[in-house]
Structure formats: C-alpha cells, structure tokens
C-alpha cells in the first residue's frame, strides 16, 4: 500500500475559549478527490489554514507522503507541495495572468527570464490539464471561472501535488462549475491529490472519492462516497435527521401584489445594473430570481427596499411607489407593506454591535406600539424579543447578547423573526441561507413557505440554484441586468437555468434533456 499523500494525526487548535479543531485525524490517498464537508464554524477552514501554514496547531502532526512535515508558514506548505485555492481569490486585478502566476515565485531580479519560463510552463500545463487561459490577459477582464483557473495554475506552477479548494463553486455558474470539476478530474488522473471543502452535498456526492464530515471542531466520520447518501451526510453534519427538500404544497397565487415595469437602476459608478425589467409577484407565490451574483439582482432588491434609486414604475397593491427622492426610503417601503430580509445581514439587516433585542425593532423603531411617550419602550421591546427568539428558535435565546456573537444562521433567524412577524404583504428575501448551516436552512425555508401559505407575496433572490428550485414556485433568471427567461420551478432543471444564467435564451436543447453547451460561459461577466 502506498503512503497517503497527506495524513493528519491528532490536530487540535483553539482560539481563546473556542476549540476550533479537536483531535482531528485524516488520511488522504494520492490520486483521489477527498471532500471535507461541515456546517459553518465546524472548523473546516481552520484545519485547512493549519495545513497551509496560516495557523500553528496546538497539537498534532502532519505527514506528507509518509514524511513528518512541519508547516510553519505558507512558503513551507508550497515547498511540501501543497497548493491552495481560496474562496476569495488572491489575485492582483490589474496584473496579467502571467504576472500573477510568477508573483512571489520570480527568479532573480529581472522579470523577463521568469516571464519567459513561466510562459513555457503555462503552455505545458494548459496542454496537460486543459487549463486554457490567455497568459497576457489582465485579471479583471477575466470571468470568475477563468480567474479561478489562474489560481489553480498558480498552485500547479509551484509544483503542487496536493490541491486544496475552499468552497470553489460559490461564485460559479453551473456550467462553470462543471468545467471546474472536469479539470479536477483531469488532475486526479494525473496523480494529483485534491481536497475539496464545500457545504454542497451534491458536489460531494458527484465528484469525491472519500468524504470527511466535520461537526463542532471534530471529525465525525470519514466514509467512501460511494457508500453513503446525502441524507446520511446531512445527518452526520447536523447531528440529527434533516429534511433536505422543502415540504410544500403547490402555490395558489392570488391578486398581483408587486408590479414592476421598465425598471432601470444605475449604480453610484454610473454603470447601468438593471436594464429595463418587468416583473410581477402575486399573493401566495414565491418568485425566485436566479442568476450569478452581480447581474443586477442585488440592485433590484435595493430599489425595492428603498435604499437605491431607480427609474420606471413599481406598484404595490395597485399604488405607485416612488423610486427616488422623497418617499423612496426604507421607512416608506415598510409603511407600504414591504418587509425586507437583505442579502447582507451583517452590513444591512443587523447592527452587529447592538444587542439582539435592539435588533428586533431595527427598521421599525418608529412603530407606535414600541414608544412610551418620548422614550422607547425598552422593557416591552425586550420582552417581545425574548418571545420572538423563542418562536424562531434563536440560539442562544439571550436577547442581551450582541448580534455579532450569534452564528450566521441565528443572526438570520433574528432578521427573519423581525421581518416575517411584521406580517408584510410582500417579503423581499435575499440570499436567505448564505452562510447558514443546514439545520437552520430547513427552518428558514419552512418559515418562508408558511408565509406564502398565508397568502403573502415573496420575492426571493439567491445564487444557490438548488435553493431557488426547491423554494420558488416561479423562477425568473437575470443576466447582465436583463431578465433572460421565466420558468415554472416544477418544470425546469439546473441545466436549463444555467444556460439562462449565462445569457443564452435558446434552451430547447437542454429542456429536452440533452447536454449543455460547452462554450456557454465565455460571456459570463466577472462577479461585481
């Protein structure tokens, strides 16, 4: 039996009182794809940071190809043949591909010879692994998928034998993700070892050979992917049985609540982000907006939420609402019956330094029922917050704790409790489960469906196609500020939506069940 490409024995790491990694041991065979899955805060990133020399483990040993190896910094990791592709790329935006690849690995003081060597090496790598990128293109002109390839090339150029990818598909279209996995397959065939960190069960099931599950800093199981199931993995991650599919009845749409006509939004830099869209949302339905991040969905939500200006007409229950100037702010929107769970709960939906109870009235601080003469009825707000946190199962149920001290899922529950219990006519909800663990996702989805069943209109924006498909009744796809298509959620699939997300409106091929279009991602713009 060959020595494992990489083996960890008893790795532990604590940050203050938090035990991020507890006695973790894994062993990964060369030439395999090993998945690591776990909820947010389970300790996946910490473990990988230890492997890449960013953190020093409190205890434990690392063996590379059977050799005990110390990794005090990232240079040592590179020398040991470890390459890392981060979730947020570490590229110099205004450098060319070639310049980025030699950055930090230049030979000598003059650049020319290293550039020449790198160009040769790059050509060789491109042929060997199908990693085609124009070496002279500037990074900011590349699509996100191609930027990621540059990150992979950087690692290979440094002779990486073990490649770690942290949530690599978070910013990719489905087609781009497919291409990425084809590249990873090629790398595996060439004997490279790949560690894939993700929270997407589907990717684990489809592409990995073995998978390790982490929960609360511990490695709860390592299994052969072929011998497990998504349900089983989810249970291992959360520690209890989880409903992966949303349980919901067919929608019974009623009257039109929100009607958007010819909406255009220009951002602060003067770039038109939403280029004339028409959209309706009716009572009792969930309309999902799919699209790669940065194609105008965020701006659409911002205008609806009253914190960006737009042009066009929007009516709410038949009455026009102003899109700029007086009456176009969050207060007016709330008065019109619109509640909003914003995409970025940490920057928008919550004041992180405020206690949870203070956050439960954020945006509704003008409501008459929480005033007590000239002062705010803090006692009443606190009592109500306690009850809200109970109803929405916020953990820990301590209203005095600052918002920043809750986990992502529990922060989201605080926002949801506030917005849903206002009983709005229309709920805007952006990225409801971004950074939220599986256990909480189930709960959040159920709350949204319940609201729909009460006859409320819901506009959902998410970059997670799976989420759109399982939650929405009707799916609208946005690409480059336009709506490229609208589908019934029950009668479409990821392939078809993937094409629409890339701006290709002719989806007859995939709608009939045939394969996707390989060149489809060339025109996908970079994530904005």
């Amino acid at each position: 039996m060959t020595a494992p490409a990489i083996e960890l024995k008893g790795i532990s790491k604590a940050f203050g009182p938090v035990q991020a990694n507890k006695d973790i041991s894994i062993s990964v065979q060369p030439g395999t794809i090993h998945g690591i899955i776990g909820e947010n805060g389970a300790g996946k990133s910490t473990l990988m940071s230890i492997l890449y020399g960013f953190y020093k483990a409190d205890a434990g040993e690392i063996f590379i190809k059977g050799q005990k190896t110390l990794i005090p910094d990232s240079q040592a990791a590179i020398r040991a043949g470890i390459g890392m592709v981060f979730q947020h790329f570490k590229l110099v935006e205004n450098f060319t591909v070639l310049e980025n690849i030699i950055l930090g690995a230049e030979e000598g003081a003059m650049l020319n010879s290293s550039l020449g060597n790198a160009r040769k090496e790059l050509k060789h790598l491109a042929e060997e692994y199908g990693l085609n990128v124009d070496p002279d293109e500037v990074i900011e002109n590349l699509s996100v998928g191609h930027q990621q390839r540059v990150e992979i090339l950087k690692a290979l150029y440094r002779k990486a034998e073990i490649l770690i990818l942290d949530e690599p598909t978070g910013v990719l279209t489905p087609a781009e993700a497919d291409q990425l996995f084809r590249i990873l397959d090629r790398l595996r065939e060439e004997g490279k070892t790949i560690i894939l960190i993700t929270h997407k069960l589907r990717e684990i099931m489809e592409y990995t050979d073995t998978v390790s599950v982490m929960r609360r800093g511990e490695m709860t199981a390592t299994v052969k992917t072929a011998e497990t199931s998504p349900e089983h993995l989810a249970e291992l991650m959360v520690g209890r049985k989880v409903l992966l599919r949303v349980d919901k009845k067919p929608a019974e749409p009623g009257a039109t609540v929100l009607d958007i006509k010819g909406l255009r939004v220009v951002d602060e830099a003067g770039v038109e982000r939403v280029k004339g869209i028409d959209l309706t949302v009716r009572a009792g339905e969930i309309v999902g907006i799919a699209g790669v991040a940065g194609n105008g969905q965020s701006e659409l939500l911002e205008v609806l939420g009253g914190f960006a200006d737009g042009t066009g007409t929007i009516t709410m229950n038949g009455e026009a609402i102003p899109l700029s100037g007086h009456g176009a702010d969050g207060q007016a929107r709330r008065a019109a019956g619109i509640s909003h769970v914003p995409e970025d709960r940490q920057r928008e939906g919550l004041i992180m330094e405020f206690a949870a109870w203070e956050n439960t009235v954020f945006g509704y601080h003008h409501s008459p029922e929480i005033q007590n003469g000239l002062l705010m009825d803090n006692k009443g707000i606190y009592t109500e917050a306690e009850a809200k946190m109970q109803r929405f199962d916020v953990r820990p149920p301590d209203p005095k704790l600052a918002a920043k001290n809750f986990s992502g899922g529990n922060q989201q529950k605080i926002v949801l409790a506030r917005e849903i219990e206002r009983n709005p006519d229309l709920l805007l909800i952006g990225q409801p489960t971004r950074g939220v663990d599986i256990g909480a996702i189930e709960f959040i989805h159920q709350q949204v469906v319940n609201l729909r069943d009460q006859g409320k209109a819901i506009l959902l924006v998410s970059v997670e196609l799976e989420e759109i498909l399982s939650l929405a009744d009707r799916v609208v796809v946005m690409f480059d500020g336009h709506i490229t298509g609208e589908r019934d959620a029950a009668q479409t699939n990821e392939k078809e939506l993937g094409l629409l997300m890339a701006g290709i409106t002719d989806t007859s091929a995939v709608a009939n069940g045939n394969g996707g279009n390989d060149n489809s991602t060339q025109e996908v713009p970079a994530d904005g």
Partner: protein
Amino acid sequence: MDKMPKWADIVLIPLISLLLAAFFSALVILAIGENPIEALKLMVDGALMRSSGWGYTLYYATNFIFTGLAVSVAFHARLFNIGGEGQAMLGGLGVALCCLYVPWPHWSLAILGASVGAALFGALWALIPAYLQAKRGSHIVITTIMFNFIAAAILNYVLVELLRPVGAMDPASAKFPDATHLPSFQDMFSTEGNKMFRGAPANVTFFLALAASVFVWLLMWRTKLGYQIRAFGHSESGALYAGISPVRITVIAMLISGALAGMMSVNTTMGESERLILNSTEGAGFIGIAVALMGRNHPFGVLLAAILFGFLYQGGAELALWTSIPRELIVVIQALVILFTGALDNMVREPLEKLFIAMRRRNA
C-alpha cells in the same frame, strides 16, 4: 461570548491605563530632579483635600463634562467633532448677548436664557460643517478644525469692534448685569461660621452639567433618535436599509454636539468671568476629546473622566505654584494620561483579554 466581563472593560482598563500614565509621569518628574511622591501629594492636597481645591476641580470638570458629552454624542454617529473649541467660543457669544441685552429679573431665568443662547450659537456653528459633511462629503475633522480658527477670529472682531465698552483697553465685553450673577459654590454652601469653597469659581452650572449628562444618557439609550444615531454610527449601510437618513442624522447629531459644547460657556462666561473675554475656553474643547475617549463615550464615564481631568488641571496649577516643576510639565502629564487612556487603549486591552480567556479556560 464577550472576551471579558463588563466591569473589566469599564473599570479595570482605565484604571490600569491611568496607573501606567502615573508611572511614566513619575519618571519624567524624577528626571527633572523632583520627587514624584511629593508632587502627587501636592496635587491631591491642592485639588482634593480642601473645599476650595474642589471648587476649582469641579469648575474645570464642568467645562469638560460639556465638551466631553459633545464629542461623545457626535462620536456615537461616528462623527469626530473636534470643533468643540470653536463651538464653545461662539456659545460664549450667545451667553454674552443674552446677558447683556435681555433684562433678566433673576439668575434662575437668566441661566435658562443663557443656556438656550449658548446652545443655539454652538449648534449653529456646528451646522455648517455638519451640512458640508452630510451633503458634500467634506470631512468633518477638517472643517471643524478650520471652524475653530474662524470662530476665534470672529470672536476677536466682535470683542474689539462691537462689544468692547467705549474707552476700555482689553478685548472684552462689558460686565454682565448683577441679576445674571450665578450662585457660586461659596454662595450656596457656606454657613455663617464656615466659609466653604472660598474664592473658587465652581458654580451652579455644575448641576446643569449633571443634568446634561442625564439628558444625553436618556437621549442615546432611551429614545428613538438616540437609537438611530447609534445605528447610523455603527453601520451606514444598515441605516440606509432601515430607512434612517444619513443626512438627517449627521446634521442632528452635530447640532446636539455643538449645542452641548456651546453650553460650556455658561460655566466660564456667565459663571466665572461674568463678561465675555477672549480665549475663555482655554482648550477645554480639545480636552473634551480625551474625556470622551476615556469615558468610553458614556455619560457616566465622561463625568468621571471630566473630574479626573479637572483634578489634573487644578493639581497641575498647584504644582506650578509650589514647586519648580514648570507649568509645561503638567501638559506632559495630561498628554501621558490621554496617550495611555485613549490612544494606547489596546496595549492594555489585549493582554487583559488574553488573561481573562486563559482564566476562564482554566476554570472550565
């Protein structure tokens, strides 16, 4: 989980910082050949052991409470108002106009009128930088600093050309009418046989400062407006989401801040000099920054920090009087206090946080 208990944050850190500042001050005093223990004794004797000492300490503290509150209110909206000095100068003008041109029947009415005048002038002086910040993005630090100079120039002009009584030599207004005389602590607390606070300038304005502290506390933590100011200060994007207008909050927070800074001159102009003079603020606007920093922008903290700085001011004056320690050294000591309590906060905080975490882990 918070890294350490609240009491450590509020009490322990300032205390350690203060001890460090005292230690380094002692080194400086040693270096110029004086005895630091003697010096401390003198300061405490002069500022705290006699009622007249307290009369000075609390007089200075009154100024610092107002300017400290002013800085802290603006700071809750993440606005760095370092124009307290100019706002206080203009506040003085408001006090003077009120006292000189309105025939007050009694000091109790006069102090209310003068407070309104001071607050109004101070607030108006803060309004222009606030507007420029909110609408034009001109940085408030730059504009408020410039407005300090403009305020000084205006006051100079007004005193020399307009308010100076005919024939007077110094740039000062006429003396205020007797009806506007505010009761000093000496007036209030002395009994027949026992004169208290002899000759000290502390006066009834101190209680106005206490009331202002309570007001600021209520405003920031009990009202909708305070809620909005704090929310805006923590996150502008959050404020936009909630429909809190950044322009409105910036302007309102600065108006309140300017009004508080302006009210300081009720103490100096009406309570002490009883006429408007040049440079009656004596840098209290800037000390307010240190006071707010040390007081963690909380009214109660500001109150304690203001009394501490009052003590340093008065104790420093005593030192200069009785030893060969020059007046400038007092400024060095104050600077050390500001350095350790404000600027080097993290130097004490981080090791302390680590200590608490380690202790907690051992107990767990």
